[in-house]
């Protein structure tokens, strides 16, 4: 039988062990909760600038081009069909195209489905995805079957509406 002292020590030792376990998990989570990531993210532009200054003379344009992330197209223009001429500004969030009023960009086009297609940003590009519409979504006369990259200046058709992205 263990002595009184060791029993007491083991008792407190166990409580300490429990809390060690708690703190190890907390410490392990730190990175996963995104603390490190956001810090990194905000510090990135500053570092880019410094690098650019250093490389400007030596490496020339090739180096700086690689550093600069290309800008995502920020405008959506309707160039054909009902609503021709209107221009929408694109944010960072996906855009839902369709006839339904809860769409991000409601289209007044009888040939559209309620929720027709979705444009979503990935890095510096926009992707277009058909949401099972009746009349289909077309890029270069090809009906979409999967999410597809949309380049600025290349028109795509949603119902009878022709849309293109602009920088």
């Amino acid at each position, binding site marked *: 039988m263990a002595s009184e002292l060791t029993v007491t020590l083991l008792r407190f030792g166990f409580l300490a062990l429990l809390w060690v376990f708690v703190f190890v998990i907390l410490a392990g989570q730190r990175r996963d909760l995104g603390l490190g990531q956001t810090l990194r993210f905000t510090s990135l532009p500053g570092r880019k600038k410094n690098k650019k200054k250093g490389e400007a003379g030596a490496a020339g344009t090739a180096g700086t081009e690689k550093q600069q992330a290309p800008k995502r197209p920020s405008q959506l223009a309707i160039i054909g069909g009902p609503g*021709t001429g209107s221009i929408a500004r694109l944010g960072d969030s996906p855009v839902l195209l369709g006839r339904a009023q809860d769409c991000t960009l409601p289209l007044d086009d009888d040939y559209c489905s309620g929720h027709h297609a*979705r444009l979503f*940003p990935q890095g510096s590009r926009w992707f277009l995805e*058909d949401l099972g519409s009746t009349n289909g979504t077309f890029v270069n006369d090809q009906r979409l079957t999967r999410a597809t990259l949309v380049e600025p200046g290349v028109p795509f058709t949603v119902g009878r509406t022709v849309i293109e992205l602009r920088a």
Partner: protein
Amino acid sequence: MTTRAQSSQEQSTAPDAEQHVPKPRRFFELLLLVLSWIVAIGAMCLVDLGNTASWDHRIVAAAAVLIVGSLIIHVILHLKARYADPFILPIVVVLNGIGLTMIYRIDLTTPNSSVGSQTAWSAVAMIACAAALWFLTDHRVLVRVTYISLAASIFLLLLPLVPGLGTEINGARIWISIGGRTFQPGEVAKITLAIFFAGYLSTNRDLILLAGKKIGRVRLPRFKDFAPMFVAWLVSIGVLVVQHDLGSAILFFGLFLAMLYLATNRFTWVGVGLVLVAIGGFFAYKTISHVTVRIDSWLHAFDPAVYNQQAGGSGQIIQGLFGLASGGLFGRGLGNGRPDLVSFANSDMIVTAIGEELGLLGLGAILMLFLMLVSRGFRAALGTPDAFGKLLAAGLSAAMVLQLFVVIGGVTRLIPLTGLTTPFMSAGGSSLLANWFIVGLLLAISHSARSPRVVNEDAGDAEDIADTGQLGATAAISKLGSSSHEETASSPHTAGGHS
């Protein structure tokens, strides 16, 4: 979401941003697992030290089940869900281990002998968790069983009412007994209901939100959009009122409200729900004797008449409180308390037994573990791209929080005591099975939340996004993602109308 996708995109061009890619971290999990075994087995040894000073075969069995079971799940995670959350499994192993320890410890001083069956159930529950992980490589397939799980919930909740199969224990008819073994189907119904709510709300969220009449600032959903939810709610509450299980009723109603709020972001629902709870609670207090007794023994717990009452007296609560008090800050030490004075010390009141023997510090650590477990669940919900997974992970986590609140609030006399189990700790196989299964689901969802998603130009992977996202889900994700798009949306709408 977008920043995450962006960062993985940037990673391909900027080599210095390696840390943006989530790592599997399976070896970190193994390390934590080893630590969790040390904690669990240490607890078991400490009980033994105070009592028999030799290895008891029951302890060896319990420890072996914990180690082998968690190793199997760990290996399956390696094979099937490499990016699953590394913290969930070790936390649960510690909680289950301490639960087994306390049940064993209470077995030693009372005529109970439940540690054997609890160990067996732990093994079964861990196998269930492993099976869930093995077969459920993509949690989105559960969307297909939305309505089946509604039917299953109703079936499970009605099972105890079947004569001959259902048994009534301590005034609540929530058990079924098959071949001498009892099972609480309500625990499993918790999961199937969460699956139904998640599946239904992720596809019909827009209809519930946007179709329907507007009264003042509140938009009421059309009845046909809301009817299945209403049925689910009515059945779960109605059956529970009939079965006299107040705790489960609170749990299901809370799950319903939480998921509605998670899906719609309308606080009005929660407000209306709480008002309904208040009204319902008042009438239940006035009319249902079972509820009256519960609330009286909460309000007038120290009244000798209430304390000594035969059925549903407050003796249990008060003895539990005395136990907590004698535990103090550091506790009496494992094996040195008197949890045998409290009735149902190893199921309803296991929290006070732990508080007595491990003290405020020990109980605090256990509550921290629960907090971290639940926060990992919500983290998985935040990270996963599909609306169904978001709702399911968040809903299951919310259910666990609610259950803990009802149990611990009850034993500490913050709210009336209702018989719910403490997840992973209370003696009771159905609860253990259901909660380990929830862990399996959370691990599966966290895998999809943390695994890297890269959309290439040739759209090899984009295809699977398009495939799985049926209309409702994708639309909902884009909405859940941000609220800022509403501002950009207003300008094109007006512009389009004019030209």
